[in-house]
C-alpha cells in the first residue's frame, strides 16, 4: 500500500509546525530497523547538506549609483578585481579571483599580505565587515565620472547576492600524485609517490546522491545557501548527467551539478568562508542544504544509499592533461576509513569537505522546517538529464 504526498500537503503541515523532518543521516541510520515503508509513512521531509569548497561561485553586486554617475569599467574590492563589463554599476566578484594588491587590513595593521581572493572578500562582506572599493569609469555624457573610491559594507550596497554557476557536484574524483615532486592542487597539497589522497565529496549525506536522477530537485527548488535562503537557478556548468552509473543510479564520477542563487545579505559568516589553496589560489567554502519532500516510498528508498554503495575514481594529477590516468574506483567507506590501497600500497586519505559541518547544514535546515520558517517549492522545470559534455580543442588558424 503506497503512500503519496504532495508538496502542498507537506507545506500545510510545515506551516502548522506539524511536519516530521529527518536528516538524511537519520534515515540511513534507522532504515535497517524500520524499513523504507514505515519511514515513508511518518516522515514528510528529509534534509541533506554539504559544506565544501565550491570554486565556481561568485557574487553579483549592484553598487548603487553615484552622483555624478559612474559607468564602471574596472574595479577592485579590497584589492580583488571584479568583472564590470555589463550594467554601469553591476559587478561580478568571482570566488577564485586572486587579490591584485594588499587589502585594507594589511595596509592598516601592517600584517603580511595574506593569500586571499574573491572568496575572502565575499565572506568578509557577509560577515558585515567594511572593505575599500576603487573603480575606474568610462566617462560619457550619461556617466561623466571617471573614478570613484569609497568604503562599502553589505548594508551600503544596493544589491548583493551569490550567483554560483557550478555548485553541488554529484560525486567528484579522488586525487593523488603519482609523480616524484609535490603538487599544489585545487584539492590541497599532494605528496609525491602516492603520499596522500584527497576526496572532495562528503559522501552519501551530500544532497544529490540522494536524488540521483534529479527527480525532486529542479529549477526553482528552494534551498539552504550559505545560511540564508537560496534557489536552484539552472543546471550547473559541466553538468554531466550521462556519467556512467551503478545499478543504484549513483554516478561513478563527476555528474550532475547545479547553479545556485541566493540573497547574500541574509547569509551568515559561519556558512560562507574564504579559503586558499597554497600554490593554487583562493576559493570559497559554502554550506548548501537541500530538502527532499517524501512524495512516495521511492524518495526514501533513494535516501538509504550508504557510503559503501557509492564510488569515486582515483585520478593521478601528476599528468596535467584533460584525460588523466586513474587507479580505478574506491568506495566512500574506504575513503572515510583513512586509507585506501593503490598498487598494493596503503595511501592515506583525507576529505576536503567538512563532514561535520555538512551534517550540521542538514540539522539546521531541519530546524528551519520544523519551526515553520522554510516551505518547499515545486520545481518550475527539470534539470536536463541528457546533456552532452563537450571538450574544447583548437581549430582553424
Amino acid at each position, binding site marked *: 500500500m503506497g503512500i503519496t504526498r504532495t508538496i502542498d500537503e507537506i507545506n500545510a503541515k510545515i506551516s502548522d509546525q506539524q511536519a516530521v523532518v529527518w536528516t538524511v543521516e537519520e534515515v540511513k541510520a534507522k532504515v535497517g530497523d524500520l524499513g523504507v515503508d514505515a519511514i515513508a509513512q511518518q516522515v514528510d521531509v528529509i534534509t541533506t547538506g554539504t559544506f*565544501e569548497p565550491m570554486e565556481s561561485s561568485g557574487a553579483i553586486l549592484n553598487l548603487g549609483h553615484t552622483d555624478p554617475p559612474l559607468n564602471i569599467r574596472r574595479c577592485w574590492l579590497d584589492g580583488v578585481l571584479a568583472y564590470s563589463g555589463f550594467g554601469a554599476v553591476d559587478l561580478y566578484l568571482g570566488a577564485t579571483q586572486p587579490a591584485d594588491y594588499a587589502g585594507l587590513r594589511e595596509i592598516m595593521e601592517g600584517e603580511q599580505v595574506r593569500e586571499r581572493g574573491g572568496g575572502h572578500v565575499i565572506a568578509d562582506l557577509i560577515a558585515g565587515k567594511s572593505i575599500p572599493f576603487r573603480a575606474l569609469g568610462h566617462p560619457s555624457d550619461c556617466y561623466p565620472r571617471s573614478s570613484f573610491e569609497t568604503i562599502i559594507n553589505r548594508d551600503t550596497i544596493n544589491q548583493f547576492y551569490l550567483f554560483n554557476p557550478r555548485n553541488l557536484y554529484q560525486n567528484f574524483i579522488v586525487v593523488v600524485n603519482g609523480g616524484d615532486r609535490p603538487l599544489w592542487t585545487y584539492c590541497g597539497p599532494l605528496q609525491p609517490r602516492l603520499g596522500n589522497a584527497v576526496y572532495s565529496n562528503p559522501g552519501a549525506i551530500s544532497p544529490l546522491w540522494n536524488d540521483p536522477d534529479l527527480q525532486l530537485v529542479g529549477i526553482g527548488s528552494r534551498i539552504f545557501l550559505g545560511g540564508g535562503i537560496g534557489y536552484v537557478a539552472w543546471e550547473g556548468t559541466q553538468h554531466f548527467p550521462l556519467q556512467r552509473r551503478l545499478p543504484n543510479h549513483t554516478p561513478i564520477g563527476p555528474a550532475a551539478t547545479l547553479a545556485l542563487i541566493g540573497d547574500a545579505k541574509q547569509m551568515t559568516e559561519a556558512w560562507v568562508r574564504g579559503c*586558499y589553496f597554497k600554490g593554487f589560489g583562493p576559493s570559497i567554502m559554502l554550506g548548501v542544504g537541500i530538502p527532499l519532500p517524501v512524495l512516495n516510498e521511492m524518495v526514501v528508498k533513494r535516501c538509504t544509499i550508504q557510503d559503501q554503495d557509492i564510488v569515486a575514481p582515483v585520478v593521478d594529477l601528476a599528468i596535467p592533461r584533460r584525460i588523466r590516468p586513474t587507479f580505478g574506483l574506491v568506495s566512500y567507506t574506504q575513503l572515510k576509513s583513512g586509507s585506501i590501497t593503490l598498487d598494493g600500497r596503503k595511501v592515506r586519505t583525507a576529505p576536503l569537505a567538512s563532514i*561535520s559541518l555538512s551534517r550540521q547544514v542538514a540539522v539546521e535546515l531541519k530546524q528551519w522546517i520544523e519551526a515553520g520558517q522554510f516551505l518547499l517549492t515545486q520545481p518550475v522545470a527539470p534539470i536536463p538529464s541528457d546533456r552532452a559534455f563537450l571538450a574544447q580543442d583548437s581549430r582553424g588558424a
Partner: protein
Amino acid sequence: MPVTYRLAKDFNVAASIIRAQVAPNQVGTLVVELQGDIDQIDAAVDWMETQDVEVSSASGEIIIDDLVCVDCGLCTGVCPTQALTLDPNSFHLKFQRSRCIVCEQCVPTCPVQAISSNL
C-alpha cells in the same frame, strides 16, 4: 660552520632538520630534532654553546584556532605521525600534541589558515 656534520661526526648524533633559516652574515635559526645517546646529546649541546650557537630546547608546537577550523580534515592526510586525525564518528579534527613532531606540513595545507606554529 657545518653544525649538523660535526654533530654526526664528533658526537654520533643524528640531526633531522625540521626548519632552517640561514643567510650569509646574518644570525640564522635551525630547528633540529636530535637523536642519539643522551650523554652524547648533552655533550653536543655543550659543544655548540662553546661555538656561540645559542641552543634552546624546543617547546615548539602547532596551534589550531578552533574558531577558524572548519573540520575539513585536509591536514590529516599530510600529517606523518597521525597527530592530526578525524574522529571516526563525529568527524571533528583531533590533535594529539604528544604525537606532533612540529614538521609543520599541516600549516600550508590548511585552506582556512587555522594552523600556525610558534617556532
